[in-house]
Every structure is written in C-alpha cells, then in structure tokens.
C-alpha cells in the first residue's frame, strides 16, 4: 500500500522534527519510507513543507507527493493548510489543522488581513474529504507549558482518528529516538492527543 502524508507549517514550529518522528515510526512499522524537507531559505517564520511517504519495499517512490495525491495533510498553522491544498483532493485527503494562526509580517506590511477559520475551511473544502481542527498549541501550552508540544499532540490526535497506519508503540519509540529535549512532555502530548481524538 501507499500512504502519502504532507506536513506543513512555519519555521520554528517543529515541522521537520515531526517529519522525522513520523518517518522513523513508519520505518519501525515495516514500511519503506521516503520524504523530503524543503526548508532552505526558510528561517524562523518562513513556510516549511515536508513529506513522508509510506510504501512497501518492492516499489520505487520519489521523495515528494504528487499534486492532488496526499492522503493526509498535517498543518501546524491554518493559513499554510490552504497552501497545502495543492497536494490535496476532495475524494482522498483528510486535513488535520492546528488552530494556532501565526500571522505573517507581510500581512501587516502589505495590509492583507489574515483569514478567519471559517474562511480557511471554506477555501479548502473543495480539496478535503474531511477537516479536523485541533486546538493543539493551546492545549499543549495549557497542560504542558509550551506550544511546541502541540505537534506531537497532533500525531496522537491523527492516530486516534485512524489517520496514521502506524502503531502507538512505534510512534512512541520514534518520539523517544528523535526528540532531543523533554521527551516525557512530548510523550504526554502524544497521549493527550490520543484522548482528544477518541
């Protein structure tokens, strides 16, 4: 089988760490894993897309998901979920969106307002089979003290919703292997996400 995940967010949100967690978890699960990080010029505050593609060992799969072909979009920032729609389509893609808008400075400078959550949902509705809005940053901050744990929380949520074909055990193992600081809090975040998704 093939399962294509797109992760998107803003530099500093932990997109790349989460990508590596997912890739390792999928690897422990027995998949062949491909993916790519497209960070380059993106410093703090830049847009960062990343992919994780799960497939079996007898297939050759290229690093980036094809246009209109993602199974899952994990968006750590709402505005960027709209731009991820390039990789999504109505009959296939599920969106999980962290309700934590980070307003780009250029919106300030150029006087372009940041869209409301309703508008964001409307814009992606033509590309989504289903949309989940999760208050990941907010709950992570509330319960664990920092917003950054929200990304692993999102993995817990997606897992509980049946959107990750990887076992809890393997995700936990990957978190332990990948996250450099505060492993316990990340594992707690994962459990909170699981609860929220159930």
């Amino acid at each position, binding site marked *: 089988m093939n399962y294509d995940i797109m992760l998107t967010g*803003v*530099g500093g949100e932990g997109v790349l760490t989460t*990508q*590596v967690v997912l*890739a*390792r978890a999928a*690897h422990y699960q027995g*998949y*062949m*894993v*491909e*993916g*790519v*990080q*497209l*960070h*380059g*010029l*993106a*410093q*703090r*505050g*830049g*847009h960062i897309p990343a992919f*994780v593609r799960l497939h079996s060992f007898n*297939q*050759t*799969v*290229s*690093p*980036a998901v*094809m*246009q*209109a072909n993602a199974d899952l979009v994990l968006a750590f920032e709402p*505005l*960027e979920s*709209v*731009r991820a*729609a*390039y990789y999504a*389509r109505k009959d296939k893609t599920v969106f999980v969106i962290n309700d934590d808008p980070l*307003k*780009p*400075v*250029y*919106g*300030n*400078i*150029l*006087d*372009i*307002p*940041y*869209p409301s959550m309703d508008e964001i949902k409307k*814009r*992606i509705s*033509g*590309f989504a089979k289903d949309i989940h809005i999760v208050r990941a940053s907010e709950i992570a*901050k509330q319960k664990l003290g920092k*917003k950054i744990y929200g990304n692993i929380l999102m993995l817990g949520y997606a897992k509980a919703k049946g959107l990750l074909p990887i076992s809890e055990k393997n995700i936990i193992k990957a978190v332990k292997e990948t996250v450099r600081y505060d492993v316990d809090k990340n594992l707690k975040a994962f459990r909170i996400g699981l609860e929220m998704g159930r």
Partner: protein
Amino acid sequence: MDILKKSGEKVVLLGNEAIARGALEAGVGVFAAYPGTPSSEVPMTIARVAKKRRMVFEYASNEKVAFETAAGAALSGVRAMTAMKHFGLNVAADSISPIAYYGPKAGLVVLVADDPNGWSSAQSEQDTRYYARMFRMPMLEPSDPQEALDFTRFAFDLSEEFNIPVLIRTTTKVSHVIETVKLGKLKKPRTKGSFVRDYEHYYNIRPGLQKLHREVDRKLERIEKKYGQKLNKVYNRNSNSKIGIIASGVSYQYAAELSSLLGLKVPIAEINMTFPLSRKFIANFIKGKKAVLVLEELEPIVEEFVKQVAKEVNPRLEVHGKDMLPRYGEYTLELLLPVFEKIFRKSYGLDLKAHKRKYEKAVEGLPPRKPVMCYGCPHRSTFYAVKKVFGNTKNVVYPGDIGCYVLGIFEPFKMQDLVVSMGASVGIAHGITRVSGQEVVVFVGDSTFFHAAMPAIANLRFHDGKSPLVVVLDNHVTAMTGHQPHPGSGFTATSDPTKAIDIAEVAKALGAEVRVANSFNQKQLEQALRELREVKGPRVLVSRGECRLFWRRNMIRKGLSWPVFEVDQNKCQKCGVCTDEFSCPAITKDTSGALPVFRIDPNLCWGCSVCAQVCPYGAIRVKKEG
C-alpha cells in the same frame, strides 16, 4: 545515533547523512568544508562524530581552502573529502582543476550539491555537471539516499584505483530526502600520512603539463571502459517496449514511480556516472528502439550525448527531453506526468490542470509568507539604523551579499539591491563608486567577510578615494547554514576553543576607518553610521550582535529566561512603526476594530529590546511579571 549504527541495520537517513555515513564507511581521515545548503548536513553530521571516530574535521574559511585541505591530506596518503554547494565549486574550482591532473595518493572525494529551483539559494541554477568535463574528473550521481551512501563509499575506491579525485553530485531532492537506508561496515579512519616529493610527477610546467593532461584523459578512458556498464543500470531490461527512458539523479525516481502509476513496463536506463558517459552503455540501450525520453534536470547533457551516439548506432531514433520539458527549475511528478501520458499514450485520469486552476483560486488574496529574519535578529536592527541614516532613495545603493541578511531584500527594508556571490558586494560597490556619485552601503556577514570580502576591502585602500561604506553584520557564527563556527567565532567545529580573529582589527589592517557598534543599540549604530558617512576613504562598520536564534538556544540549554516586551496600550499612538517599518514578526497588528491594536506575542519575543528603542512614543516596555 543512527549514523554510527552497525552494518546491516536499516535506518532512516537524510541524503546528506547517508553521504556522511558513506564517507565513514570508506574510512575518511580528513574532512574539511565550508557550509553551504543544500550540502550543509554532510559536514554537520561528520562534525558530530569526528572526535568519536578519531578523524580530522574542520570548517574552513571558504570552499577553496576546504578543498585544498582535503587535497593536501590526500596527496599525503590520507583519505579525504570535502562537500559544498554548487556555487562553492566555483570558489574551489581554481584549485580543483590542477589537482585533477596531479591525482591524489589516497581517495579524494568532492561532494557538490546543486539546487535547481533555488530552494536554498538565489543567484543561479548552475548545472555543475559541466565542471566534471572541464576538470577531467569522474562524476557520480546518486538518485536517492541509499545510492548516495553506496556511491560515496565507492568513490573513495574509484579515486584510489585510478589516482583521480572524484566528484559526487546531488541536488536538493537527493540531499534533503529521507529514506530507509541499509548500512554497510564502518571503517577505521587512517589520519597519518606524509607527502613524498616527486618532481617528475608534480612537474606541471610545459611540457609536463601536456603529459599530465594526457594521463588524466587516459584514466577517464579506462574508467569508462571498466565502470561504464557496471555503474549504470537498466530496469525492465526484458520489456519489449520500443520506447525507453534514460534518467539520471532524482529523475530516475520520478520515471520509476510514474511508470508504475501508469502501469507501464518500459525499460529505464539509470545513468549513475554522468562523466565519463559510457558510449557502449547508451549504444546497447538505444539499439532497436524507436524513441527514448531523456530525463535530467537543468541542462541537456545526457540528452546531447544520446543524440551523438544515436547518429552512429540508430540514426532514426527519436530523442525527447528538453523539447518537452524546461531547462529551468526542478522536475516533479506532476510536471512529468503529461509528458509520460503523451509519449506512452496512457491516461492517469486526473485533470491536474483543472486542479491547479482551482487551487490558484483557493489561495488567491492570502497574505504571503515569505521568509523573514528571526524574532530579535540583530540584522533587522542594523538594517533599520542604516535606512534611518541613509534612506532608500535613488541616491543610495545597497549591494547585497550571501547570508541571512539576504532577507533584507523583502519589505519593509528592500535593501539588497542585488545579490551576486560571497563577498561580491564590496567589489561591485567599488565598481559603482568608480563611475557614480551615488552613496553606496554594502552589507557583508562575518563568515562572508573571512570567506571572500577581505581581498575586496584591501582593494578599496589600494584605490582609495571615494569608497563604499562596508557594514559587517557580525553575529559570531555562520547562521544561515546552521550556526557553524568561522575564524572569528572563537571555537572550532569540534567545539574546541581557538583564538578568535577580530574583524575590526582585520579591517583596520586592511586600511579602513573602523567603528564598532552593538547591533542591539540603535543610538550606537546611528552615531557610528553618521561618523563614517563623513569619512572619504575606505570605512567599515562592524555591527556586533550574536545571532539571536543561537543565543536563545544557549539560554534554553542553560535553563535561563529573558525579559519579554509588551505594548503599553495607553501610550501607543497607533503609528505602526513597529510593524510596518521595523517588522519584527513577534509584533502583530489587529485591524479588526476601528483603530488598529498592536501586540507583542510573549511566546515569540526574544527580548532584544530594539522595538522599544524604535517606538517614537516610548510605548513599548519590559513586560511585568504575571
């Protein structure tokens, strides 16, 4: 650490990590590099394990010095490697060319990472494959991390077998790809050797030069003969399709995926050695075929070769490639799909054009998210002060340079009028002042200063008179590529202390009038700029402020916190200077009410205090506890 796991294990590695592992499996003894994305993670990975592996690792002051370091070691019998981005090869080229003729005594490998589409680079989409021909060096091109690992290890053997340095070329979509990779055996590095004097061999003055040139060409012929068939691969060899695909680099991955997506069983030739290209391999592949589709990003190098070979062995062969695909940018599955559909007369059944139109409508009118300087970035503060003193009219020119400060190209500063190459801003500024009465202010990073700006600054004093003002943005590290140390940092790649070279002292010694200011102090910056504005000859402002991202990481590591700032809503006059002119991303403007409301996100404020200094009404202050 996955990178040091045992032979036979399968781990998920980044392409660049896989290259590092390949070098470790080859027992590399000396690794020197100047960081450049998309190649940066290769030296970063080696740096992390160098002490444990008891090998030599250095960040050099530029790519040329890095290559020379590796070459010196390899000429002394120690396996050595360097890695660089495409433009880095331009810098190192001057020394690579003669070393290719000499040939090393132990394996010498040069990794170069191209960046079609400019994910991490502005400037140009140069195709470094041309260099292999010019240097007379074999070039291997992996298509994924597993091949990157295997080819790197093999490159050392190839280099030693023929006494020739070897180039490995990747692109972003190989270097930044993660994949399940099977590890080979680590080899203990040898780090001791000695240079053996050999006038006969190193005599590269005419007629010795021609002899060396002839020898290197012979080596290439032998490499083509021995490895041309072996290194390149054919998939679906037994297919009876009259149309074949020839692909190299990541394009092979696209070809394989699209073939299975469309249910095609077509033969695919994967070109893994792009120089020397094997005439025999191509001839065998195209014999009896009606058409081939050649897939390679950027220049049609393989394609031209296929056309040449076809003239001899299959003159009626249709060769497709750049007639259907662009020479610019990257290939993607969606770009190649219609070409496959047309050539193989199959349909995937999805209207991607309509999808794209729908997508473009969905994102219409959204606020752009261009990359920005970090919260509390010292460069933002310096740009702000320079703009305040010099303005941004036609009478002032701001030649830019390579580093985080290239982000000054965007609003609200727009103070990188052109971006050329490492250190080029100073030379170009000099040329402008030779012919124009405009004021010229250039921005150069600290790492860039050591890399290539010093010769251009020396040149200013040499021809003094009217001179540009050189602003050195000294944030203590090579920030853009991941905070690597440089000769001014005071520590080495392996975290050992070393004497930092003072940029202000160097600038003085190069004949410039110098001022030093704290990047986080607007008054100091302004005063220094105003003073230097009156100086006629060469002048340098060293704006000193530690990279805030690096600073913050160290603060967190030490368990320290910092004061954050807030807007006093009673004092705020809604002028918008903090958001529209200073534009720290931690400050937001809420326009939902009748009057805008400005706020600083306490989670994002890195406490640099400069917003409080630029606020004309003193309305920004340290946030009170709780």
